[in-house]
């Protein structure tokens, strides 16, 4: 228990340090790298909370793929902004700071109503969760409840998610896929390969 708390506090402190570093740094390459390590720390937190599947996804997608994609975006855009540096904002961010502080205070106030972590009386544990935990082995024979829920009980949702990913792929292909028109030859022409 003691060790759990220590790990939690360490991870959360490092998350905060990362968040402030991301805000203060102007070097976008460093910011992207910090985003990746932020995702890894979040994955660590999920592991501490026994949510291994979520941690897995966070590590693979948050720290892996999205870091690569953001680096790709940076490589595409840095010629237009000098030296991969983020521009200084034109005005002092006092109003956003006030808004963020008020929202944060409200959220922290809201946590007082949230049930304790792992509380069996919490509303989230009352509705269908006991059914899944009791019936998933006899009904599906799958030891991993997460897989049983995702693939079997909530198969429609997962089908929807796959369709969303597929649509995202199509959207990216339509937006930036294919060849780009060269700058010298600015005629409307074949800017998509087939």
């Amino acid at each position, binding site marked *: 228990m003691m060790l759990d708390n220590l790990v939690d506090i360490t991870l959360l402190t490092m998350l905060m340090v990362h968040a402030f570093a991301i805000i203060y740094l102007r070097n976008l390459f460093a910011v992207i790298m910090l985003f990746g390590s932020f995702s890894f720390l979040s994955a660590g937190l999920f592991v501490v909370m026994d949510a291994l599947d979520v941690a897995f996804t966070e590590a693979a997608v948050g720290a892996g793929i999205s870091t690569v994609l953001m680096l*790709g975006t940076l490589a595409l855009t840095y010629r237009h902004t000098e030296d991969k540096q983020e521009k200084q904002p034109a005005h002092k961010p006092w109003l956003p700071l006030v808004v963020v502080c008020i929202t944060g205070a409200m959220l922290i106030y809201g946590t007082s109503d949230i049930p304790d972590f792992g509380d069996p009386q919490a509303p989230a544990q009352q509705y269908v969760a006991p059914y899944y935990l009791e019936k998933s082995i006899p009904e599906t024979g*799958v*030891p991993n409840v997460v897989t049983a829920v995702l693939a079997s009980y909530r198969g429609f949702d997962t*089908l929807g998610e796959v369709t969303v990913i597929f649509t995202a792929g199509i959207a*990216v292909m339509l937006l930036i896929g294919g060849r780009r028109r060269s700058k010298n030859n600015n005629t409307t022409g074949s800017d998509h390969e087939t």
Partner: protein
Amino acid sequence: MKHNLILRVISKFLIPLIFLFALYVQFHGDFGPGGGFQAGVIFSTGIILYALVFGVKTAKQIIPPFVLRSLASFGVLLYAGTGVASLLLGGKYLEYGVLASTQVAGQHLGILLIELGVGISVMSVMLIIFFAFAERGQTEEGS
């Protein structure tokens, strides 16, 4: 990065392990953490690593864009098709119990098929997105 010897050697050693791990996550998702989505992402990172070290053009020769597009559609179709198959066998849509002789065996088969569909689809969509970014950068540098 084409001429970096250390990167080339290490990545050649790592890429098969990444693929192996992706397949493990894919087919072991019933028993441990993971599943089609994570497996697809891990599999695509193997190819992305290859593309980063050996160049996007070489990677595209391994897995050409039209194959990726077909695979992305095939994954979704495999998922939806499993649902249609269970309809045709007299069950409800995505009711896997009717796919095999017993309820549990049918569930196993159904979950295996749809996880495979998810994995294939996610893998190819991730690569499509990565190649779209990478190719755009390349043509801009070339012009």
